[in-house]
């Protein structure tokens, strides 16, 4: 925590020494959305030159393993990669980590570091890493493609990092080195506990995201019912990129100042309509969601879903995969 501002401490490149990882073996356990860009970023940063780090991939999933081999990485089983690692990044999906952790933990060497990219399994007590290793958090706040692109561009990306257990006395230096070599510290990383990380992540995903999605769908359906052109509605809502520019402007210039830059008609209309929204109802629902995340009720439901073979998945996939009017309109636009 920064005592002057009461904000979490923000780390940047100058706070880290990525050369600490040179000569080490870094195992990427899971080559999926995060594994691929992080492995590539680490290899680019410290995988060549004097005393290079060795970036290897641990995967028990054949399609992922094949992708990693195509990308030029040595691929081992999860436990064999863990056994070779000085630093192992746990990048398996949250809900499956408890099944793999005992075997992985048993193969980690004393004095090595186990790095979680999500605080979920640790925060809810679903995994217990072995004693004698550093337990670290390095949680990028960006999708995999953006992680890679922003690193190649030299912009970096936001992440949370933290030390859950410092067995070696060097745990913070290691996680900072990893964040720097992984490309994030050009932008910055905030210090968080695993519980803070997972509650923040799940809360915004579950409290804010669905309201935004529901507002978008409702606007589309009300507009089309009234005879507005579907393509025009999608353009206004997101397809033109204006909305993503607005979010980028919020990040750049500030949330409230950005609302004043769209002309008076937009500010007047938006602000006056916002006054009529029942925010207390919205807030009540968000409090319920936050309570269920904080108490572990959501984690219990997710683990139950996993243990039962993802019974909700076909239903959710079908909602997304149906030939609905929005997807059809998007396809028709792309073909224009």
């Amino acid at each position, binding site marked *: 925590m920064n005592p002057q501002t009461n904000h979490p401490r923000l780390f940047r490149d100058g706070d880290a020494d990525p050369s600490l990882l040179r000569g080490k073996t870094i195992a990427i356990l899971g080559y999926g959305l995060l594994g691929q860009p992080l492995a590539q970023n680490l290899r680019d940063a410290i995988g060549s030159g004097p005393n290079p780090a060795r970036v290897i991939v641990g995967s028990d999933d054949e399609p992922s393993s094949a992708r990693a081999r195509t990308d030029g990485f040595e691929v081992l089983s999860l436990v064999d990669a863990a056994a070779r690692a000085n630093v192992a990044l746990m990048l398996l999906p949250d809900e499956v980590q408890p099944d793999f952790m005992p075997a992985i933990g048993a193969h980690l060497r004393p004095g090595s570091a186990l790095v979680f990219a999500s605080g979920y399994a640790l925060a809810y007590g679903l995994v217990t890493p072995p004693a004698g290793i550093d337990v670290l958090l390095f949680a990028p706040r960006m999708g995999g493609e953006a992680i890679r692109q922003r690193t190649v561009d030299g912009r970096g990306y936001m992440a949370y990092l933290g030390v859950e257990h410092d067995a070696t006395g060097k745990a913070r230096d290691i996680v900072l080195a990893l964040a720097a070599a992984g490309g994030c510290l050009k932008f910055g990383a905030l210090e968080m506990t695993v519980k803070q990380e997972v509650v923040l992540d799940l809360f915004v995903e579950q409290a804010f995201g669905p309201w935004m999605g529901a507002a978008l769908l409702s606007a589309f359906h009300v507009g089309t019912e009234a005879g507005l052109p579907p393509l025009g509605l999608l353009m206004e809502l997101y397809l033109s990129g204006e909305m993503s520019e607005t979010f980028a402007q919020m990040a750049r210039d500030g949330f409230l100042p950005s609302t004043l830059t769209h002309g008076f008609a937009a500010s007047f209309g938006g602000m006056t309509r916002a006054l009529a929204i029942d925010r207390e109802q919205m807030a009540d629902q968000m409090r319920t969601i936050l309570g269920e995340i904080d108490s572990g009720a959501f984690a219990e*439901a997710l683990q139950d879903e996993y243990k039962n073979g993802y019974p909700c998945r076909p239903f959710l996939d*079908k909602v997304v995969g149906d030939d609905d009017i929005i997807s059809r309109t998007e396809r028709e636009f792309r073909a224009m």
Partner: protein
Amino acid sequence: MPSPTPADAAGFPAMLARMIGLIDTKLTPQQREKLAAAMPSIQWEFPDVDTKLCLAAARDALRVAEPSANPQFVVRMARSTLEDAAFGRRSLGAAFLAGRIHVRGMNPLRLREFIMLVDPLLESYREAHLESANQPSAAVP
């Protein structure tokens, strides 16, 4: 899948009641028990045909119960939405995405129990619909 001749509006509540009876035969005792624990009553509302029906789930059976004035869990849709889903013209998921199904009061963390009901419900509605259409006394518009 083409739907058969639609049953008349007056026969709709009876068809829904029959649907619930048929669902009951398709659930395992374990599924019924889970449903009873997660959502003991689900009120189905079809405002276009002014029909409400309450599915009461107990450990031993599913039953039709009196609709409540203040139901805890409500699923509201047009009759045609249910029939489109039952006869494969449009999935419930797509209808939900299109704002044609309104759900109120469901605990999202118990989605699994609700989903468990969906396929048996659609199949049962289809069967009830066919039975109704095949009855000699069924009114056919």
